[in-house]
Every structure is written in C-alpha cells, then in structure tokens.
C-alpha cells in the first residue's frame, strides 16, 4: 500500500519533470520567435521613414473651428469625439463588469466578498484612521479636487482635460478609501451608480442634442462649441474619478451586508 503510494507519487513527479523540461523548451522557442519578430519590426520601422503626413496638414486649418485651442483636446473631443465617447463607455463598461463580478463588504471595502463566501481575514483593520493619515487626507483631498477641476478646465487651451482631471479625482477617491474604508458604507449605492453614469450620459445627451441644432451626431453647434465641450469634460471627469475609485474597490457594495449586521 505504502509502496504503491510512493510509486504513484514518483510517477507524478517524473511526469511533472517531463512537463517542466518541455515547458522550458517551449519557453525558449517562444522567446526566440518573439526576438525574431521584434528584430524584423525594428529593421522594418527604422529602415523606412514615416510616410508623408497628410493628416496633420489637413487638420491644421480646422482647429479654429473646434471651439478649443488645445489640438489634442480638439481631436479628442471634437474631431474624433465618437472615439472618445466609446472610450468613456469602455471605462463605464469596466466598472459595470467589475460590479457584475464581485461584491465587497461596504463596511470594509478592501476585503473581497461574494455571496457564497464570507471574508475570513480582514487584512486591513484597526481602530480607525491614524491621526497623521487623517489630517493629511483632510488637507489633500480638497486640494486634489481643486486641482482636478483646474486640469479639466485647462484642457481647453493646454495640456489637460477630462482624463487628467478624472485621474486625479480617482486618486483622491482611492486615498479616501484607503484612509477611511468604512466611509463607503455611508454612500447609497444608487448615488454611486448615478455618479458612474453621469459623464457618459452627458456625453451621449450632448451628442444627441446636436440633432436639435440640425447637425450630425456629435456635431456641436458652431458658435459656442467650447462650452459644450466643457460640459462634456466636467461630466466625464466626475464619472472617471468615481469609476476609477470603484475599479480600485473592485466590486459592488453587497446590499446584504449593508442592511443586516447579523449576516455570518
């Protein structure tokens, strides 16, 4: 009996070894192939100077009509605004996807939970936020929100815009949650949902309301395109901030844990 067991173990081990050896060969082959590909790409790209740039020249006179002076923002929100709309939707989709997969305990969002399981070892707990952290957070977060607002607004004429502002807002949110994880339980989930949807919805609404001005989808009415863009940018920034925070949290607040404390 014992002998049989050890025999089986040995066989398993030898099989494992066989696999390991094969794995090593596979890995080498993969790396070699990648090296070949990369070398070829390197040769191809370096050999050939980039083609004549027609787009940049064609674009130059159009920037005036875009309503903003920053070329990147003009392309991002006006010329290729449709791409950006879909991109905002991708972010929304990520939030949606994560919410559909996982739930978190709203009283301690840094611990995963799921309907079938219960959190075992909370890895972040203590009597409350420490003093230094709390103070820092109290000073930093309003500042970050302020800077985020500025960045978003500045996007119209220089580097900046909704994504930069939104990223900062997201950073503020993450900081807040790290410092005071319990805080999230005080926010009603419906409000979070609203915050996530706000930016994409504004973008879509603005796009649709362009029909009312006789234009195509996302064709902002010509005088004052800038203010439309600003509206979109602020909406997007808020939603990006909230969505990034929810991405960090990694799940929807579990309603059961919100309501009943006696849940095992």
């Amino acid at each position, binding site marked *: 009996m014992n002998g049989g067991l050890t025999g089986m173990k040995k066989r398993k081990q030898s099989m494992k070894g066989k696999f390991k050896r094969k794995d090593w060969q596979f890995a080498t082959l993969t790396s070699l192939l990648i090296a070949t590909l990369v070398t070829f790409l390197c040769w191809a*790209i370096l050999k050939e100077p*980039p083609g004549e*740039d027609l787009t*940049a020249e064609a*674009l130059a006179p159009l920037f005036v009509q875009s309503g903003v002076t920053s070329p990147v923002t003009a392309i991002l929100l006006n010329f290729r605004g449709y*791409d950006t709309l879909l*991109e905002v939707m991708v972010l929304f989709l990520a939030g949606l996807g994560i919410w559909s997969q996982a739930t978190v305990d709203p009283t301690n969002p840094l611990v*995963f939970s*799921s309907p079938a*399981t219960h959190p075992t070892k909370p890895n972040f707990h203590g009597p409350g936020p420490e003093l230094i952290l709390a103070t820092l957070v109290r000073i930093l977060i309003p500042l970050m929100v302020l800077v985020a607002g500025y960045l978003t607004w500045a996007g119209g004429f220089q580097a900046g815009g909704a994504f930069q502002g939104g990223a900062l807002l997201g950073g503020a949110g993450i900081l807040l949650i790290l410092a005071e994880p319990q805080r999230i339980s005080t926010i009603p989930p419906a409000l979070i949902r609203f915050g996530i949807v706000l930016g994409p919805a504004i973008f879509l609404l603005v796009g649709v309301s362009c029909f009312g001005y006789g234009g195509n989808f996302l064709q902002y009415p010509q005088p004052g395109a800038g203010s439309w863009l600003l509206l979109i940018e602020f909406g997007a920034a808020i939603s990006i901030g909230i969505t990034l925070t929810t991405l960090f949290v990694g799940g929807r607040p579990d309603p059961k844990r919100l309501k009943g404390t006696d849940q095992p």
Partner: protein
Amino acid sequence: MTITTGYIISALLLFGIGMNGLMTCSHQLRKILAVNLMASGVFLILIVTGFGTDGSAIDHVPHAMVLTGIVISVSTTALALTLACRIQQRLNRSADETAEGNDDD
C-alpha cells in the same frame, strides 16, 4: 542614432518582453502585467509617430489615440485584476473546504 531610434527600439523591446511574459509566465498576475507592458510599447510607438520628422508639424492624432488607448488599457486591466482576484479567492477557499455545492448551469 537619433532619439527616435532609441524610442522605437525600447518600445519594441517593451512589446516583445510583454508578449514573452504573456506567453511563458504561468502566474495570472504576471500575465496581466505583461499585457500592460505590451500596451506601453504600442503607446510609445504611437507617440514617436506623432513626433514629426525634422521640424515638420506635430501630428496630434496619435496623441489622442494614446490617451484613448490608456483609458482602455486601464479598464481592461481593472477587469482582469478583479477576475484574477476572484479566481485566487476561490482557489484559496476550495483549499480550505474541498466540498463545494455543485453549481447549476
């Protein structure tokens, strides 16, 4: 050897290393990071493409594309991490309690 050449080579190296990681690393987290590396490589190339040669006008379209690409990359990474966490959590749990109710469908 200009600065563009340096950018291009490092971008391609990033892409290659990322691809290698994705295909040969067995840990899921490494795979996710590897995909991020690949994305960075592609973005770098995009940025270089916007540079413009010898003082000609800078092409801003690739820059806008990079911004879009980054947001998409963040989104996919977040989803991938959540999935990986869930999977790991289950594995940990099933190591504790082997008998699990059979799920339907």
